[in-house]
């Protein structure tokens, strides 16, 4: 089957199945399933979700390790016409409950041992619970008889999945992606990368991170094999390098931090011949490191993808030859996936070549909106400042708000601060990032409440009940007052400088 005619993300697995029924679809460290087996498992789990009462238009939350079972649950939800919500497996139960309350799923798929950690906060949410170790699963909660006629995949503007991202007000935001949104990207990437059934995709990003959409669906569309990297190994450089060599990975996609770590663990000496495409996104790849990657992989295609979760990928840059005088950082490139992008000046006009403005995106990948809020309309304002280059290209310059990236993870400093302020010892705080690249740390300047002591470990414990791990503060410095601008606004640069000065 050729791509370009899909209406539902649920059809993607069928394409791979038709192309490569006996080929391996997904591989875990010690197990693998063929396309036929994955299809059958998805069908069994579909029946299980139906028995739990999940119906078309519902939502299914998925809080479990990256695994064949997790891939099959996502497919099972899509087949019913339900949307799925992958939740960070390392999230604390408090945050999982917060997300569950927000998106009100009809069922939760999780590990048996994990569901008990949530029990106190759940009013009998039907659960599909997987054994560990093992491959069995159980249904728990309201089991309803199967109803005919309510099962058909959602399509077009129907909801396919929700990805939660950090929100500046302290509450995570659920980005709602439709089938049309997801397929606009998947079909563009499939056309651009031209994968074959004998390709081996590494799946580095966790499923709650939008980079994983390429690994999973572009591979499945081509009948290729997806090699899952377990969460625990995602930044274990020697293991990743060994993985690429042993599995003879052909397509790699990750944040630049992971590739730079792998370089330090010997990825380039010698570079594995199997790798023909290396994609990266989520943060800037320093040009020096990219130059070494280019030299070590002269025949591989190196591609930078760009886009916030709200627009998935909206621009791309093919690194190509990388001339000696190439600018640093490299451009984020030009529009893709059928989107239109442009930069707007403060006065609302589109900027000319050489000028800077906020990047706006309009087109098929732009989200439906945030869960529980008014639907999104019109172009999406990325909050990213860019410089317009010749030929429809753009270069990233910086953010206009307090969002930062930590190894590709989006962190709203306001959400970190809100969690810290919930602690009785914290009167005021400014969160910031100190250090760069893989040495970057999340730090906070804290003004204590009178009579309270500020202890790093106590604040970490406190935050660990509220935030995903990558948002737990790593360094805390105490101050008598926060630095402010002449207008009284919080001076984050000043706070960062104060923290750095205490080293």
């Amino acid at each position, binding site marked *: 089957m050729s791509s370009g005619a899909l209406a539902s993300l649920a059809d993607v697995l069928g394409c791979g199945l038709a192309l490569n029924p006996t080929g391996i679809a997904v591989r875990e460290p010690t197990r693998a399933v063929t396309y036929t087996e994955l299809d059958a498992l998805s069908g069994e789990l579909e029946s299980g979700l139906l028995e739990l009462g999940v119906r078309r238009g519902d939502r299914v939350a998925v809080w479990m390790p990256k695994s064949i079972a997790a891939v099959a649950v996502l497919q099972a939800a899509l087949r019913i016409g339900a949307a799925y919500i992958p939740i960070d497996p390392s999230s604390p139960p408090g945050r999982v409950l917060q997300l569950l309350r927000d998106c009100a799923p009809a069922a939760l798929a999780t590990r048996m041992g994990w569901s008990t950690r949530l029990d106190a906060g759940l009013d009998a949410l039907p659960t599909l619970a997987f054994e560990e170790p093992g491959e069995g699963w159980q249904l728990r909660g309201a089991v309803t008889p199967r109803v005919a006629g309510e099962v058909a995949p959602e399509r077009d503007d129907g909801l396919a999945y929700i990805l939660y991202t950090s929100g500046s007000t302290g509450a995570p935001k659920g980005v709602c992606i439709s089938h049309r949104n997801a397929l606009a990207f998947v079909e563009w990437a499939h056309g651009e990368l031209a994968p074959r059934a004998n390709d081996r995709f590494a799946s580095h990003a966790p499923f709650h991170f939008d980079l994983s959409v390429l690994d999973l669906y572009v591979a499945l569309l081509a009948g290729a094999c997806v090699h899952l990297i377990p969460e625990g190994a995602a930044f274990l450089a020697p293991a990743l390098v060994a993985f690429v060599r042993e599995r003879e990975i052909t397509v790699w996609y990750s944040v630049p931090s992971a590739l730079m770590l792998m370089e330090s663990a010997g990825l380039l000496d010698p570079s594995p011949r199997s790798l023909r495409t290396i994609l990266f996104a989520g943060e800037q790849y320093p040009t020096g490191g990219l130059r070494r990657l280019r030299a070590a992989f002269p025949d591989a295609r190196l591609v930078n993808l760009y886009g916030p979760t709200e627009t998935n990928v909206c621009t791309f840059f093919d690194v190509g030859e990388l001339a000696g005088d190439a600018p640093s950082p490299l451009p984020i490139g030009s529009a893709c996936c059928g989107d239109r992008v442009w930069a707007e000046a403060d006065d609302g006009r589109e900027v000319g070549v050489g000028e800077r403005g906020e990047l706006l995106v309009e087109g098929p990948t732009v989200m439906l909106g945030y869960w529980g809020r008014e639907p999104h309309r019109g172009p999406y304002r990325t909050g990213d400042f860019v410089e317009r280059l010749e030929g429809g290209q753009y270069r990233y310059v910086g953010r206009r708000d307090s969002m930062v990236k930590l190894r590709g993870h989006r962190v709203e400093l306001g959400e970190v601060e809100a969690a810290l302020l919930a602690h009785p010892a914290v009167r005021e705080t400014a969160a910031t990032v100190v250090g760069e690249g893989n040495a970057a740390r999340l730090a906070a300047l804290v003004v204590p409440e009178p009579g309270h002591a500020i202890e790093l470990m106590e604040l970490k414990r406190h935050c660990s009940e509220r935030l995903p791990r990558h948002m737990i*503060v790593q360094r805390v410095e105490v101050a008598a007052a926060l630095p402010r601008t002449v207008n009284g606004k919080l001076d984050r640069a000043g706070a960062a400088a104060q923290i750095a000065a205490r080293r």
Partner: protein
Amino acid sequence: MNGQIAAGLGRDLIAPLCEHISASHLDGRAAVAADTPLLEWGVLDSLAFGDLLAFIEQRFQISVPLEEILPANFRSVEEIASLLERLRSRR
């Protein structure tokens, strides 16, 4: 596993592990106890594993096989010590 620790096995590992993690991953600004939840509190993040495994290899001459690099084995210094004790007794 914890029973073994209480009985004394692996105790020689606990102090150096606590000191190393405090010095390398908390800039020496806070102490780490044997039962501090290292992963849950974000003391060890995904990037820290490479450093920790290198430290274990260099200090104790124990190399941790890939299949043992599981969150359950690195939840606390106690768990790490009991993993290392198990690996040591296998030799």
